[in-house]
């Protein structure tokens, strides 16, 4: 029996196959995973994922056009909600991408460009020029939260992004990343959790995080 429903919000931005397959893989048939943009289905779901790839202007454009902003605002009142990558960035106030885009303002802070002249700023590799996008496996320093259950601190996750979250409220930072500069790898508040990396592509640590999400009751 599929007793619970997890809705992955489909707003036409990119590859939702990976996220839904990974959620199905960890749900052990206990959760039905739906990829949908239907507000009624999303309203019925127990858990909701806001994914996203691509450019912010297009993402926010589709989010507004399809009314996903209202759906997310409704979900954010009570249900466990997970933002992934651009889905996380969309939850901030504003992004520098595409000349500046207003976002959903669920978290206080800005989405900023890593820059074309990014250099390693700590450790032994001082001065090494860093490529942008930040692509590959990097460590996340955890801040205690149920979403990290069973995942070793400083585990590596898979990142692909050129813009990063500069969170204003440090109490909302639930995972710290570093690539030339410190950035928020995970943020959270009450029933909302969001990650810059791709848990669906992050092997065992990522699958564990998705499993934690399906097990999560939304109490931080």
């Amino acid at each position, binding site marked *: 029996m599929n007793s619970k429903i997890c809705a992955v919000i489909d707003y036409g931005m*990119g*590859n939702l*196959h*990976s996220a839904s*397959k*990974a959620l199905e*893989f960890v749900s052990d048939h206990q959760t039905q995973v739906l990829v949908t943009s239907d507000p009624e289905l999303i309203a019925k779901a127990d858990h909701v994922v806001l994914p996203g*790839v*691509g*450019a912010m202007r297009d993402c926010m454009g589709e989010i507004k056009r399809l009314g996903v902003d209202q759906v997310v605002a409704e979900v954010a009142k009570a249900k466990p909600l997970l933002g992934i990558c651009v889905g996380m960035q969309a939850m901030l106030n504003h992004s520098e991408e595409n000349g500046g885009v207003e976002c959903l303002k669920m978290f206080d802070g800005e989405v900023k460009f890593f820059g*074309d002249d990014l250099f*390693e700023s700590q*450790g032994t*590799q001082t001065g090494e020029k*860093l*490529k*942008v*996008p*930040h*692509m*590959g*496996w*990097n*460590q996340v320093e955890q801040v205690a939260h149920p979403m990290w259950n069973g995942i070793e601190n*400083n585990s*590596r996750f*898979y990142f*692909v*992004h*050129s813009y990063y979250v500069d969170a204003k409220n440090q109490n909302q930072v639930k995972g710290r990343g*570093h*690539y030339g500069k410190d950035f928020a790898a995970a943020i959270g508040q009450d029933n909302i959790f969001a990650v810059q990396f*791709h848990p*669906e*592509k*992050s*092997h065992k640590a*990522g*699958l564990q995080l998705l499993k934690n999400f399906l097990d999560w009751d939304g109490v931080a």
Partner: protein
Amino acid sequence: MGLAKRIIPCLDVENGRVVKGVQFVDIRDAGDPVEVAKRYDEQGADEITFLDITASHEGRETTIHTVEAIAEQVFIPLTVGGGIRTIEDIRNMLNAGADKTAINSAAIYNPEFVKEAAEKFGSQCIVIAIDAKKVSEEGEPGKWEIFTHGGRKPTGIDVVEWAVRMTNYGAGEVLLTSMDQDGVKSGFDIELTRAVSEAVNVPVIASGGVGNLQHLADGVTHGKADAVLAASIFHFAEHTVEEAKLHMQEQGIEVRL
């Protein structure tokens, strides 16, 4: 601590089987792609690259079902290349579960295709694949030219200039294969790898020539590659991905273990 250098096993697939040739001929069978991908995933591969090696000259579509089967069981990034010519090809591969697509000859026939693809799907899923052959003589400054059709057809295009142009067009990563070294097992073309890696501001994957674990480490330390790709040393169980990572770590290279 920082970003780990990636090790990427490559599956060259023909008619649904993993194969590996020496300089694109003399093909040996190396198994079922889904099983091979799962094995590498368990060994700690950072990504998997799936290349349909027949697609380019025989017009075959890469096997979407194989990609689907891999994507259902392997939760690390998957790049698919070989015969990616249209926006529709890219969409099909992404829908099948690929995270990135590698564009090779289609970019040479129509460079704007890379721009269009990156605008449509985002730079993060567009890899420019370059097959390079050295054209400079011994003692001259390094110069490499792009060859198509499995290394048979010269194009007159300079590799470093092309890599810069394609990343300006939005390619988010460069998969750089030395056709001189491919299958020869004497190591990457280090000079080529470094020249491209220093010229572009996106990650470069070194490919072609790995015969032992030290070659992988050399690609990073001397070639300045962000990721290293190999096929035969992993396919025929000469080494595991984990052994490769331990070897790299011993030399101070940051890896994901």
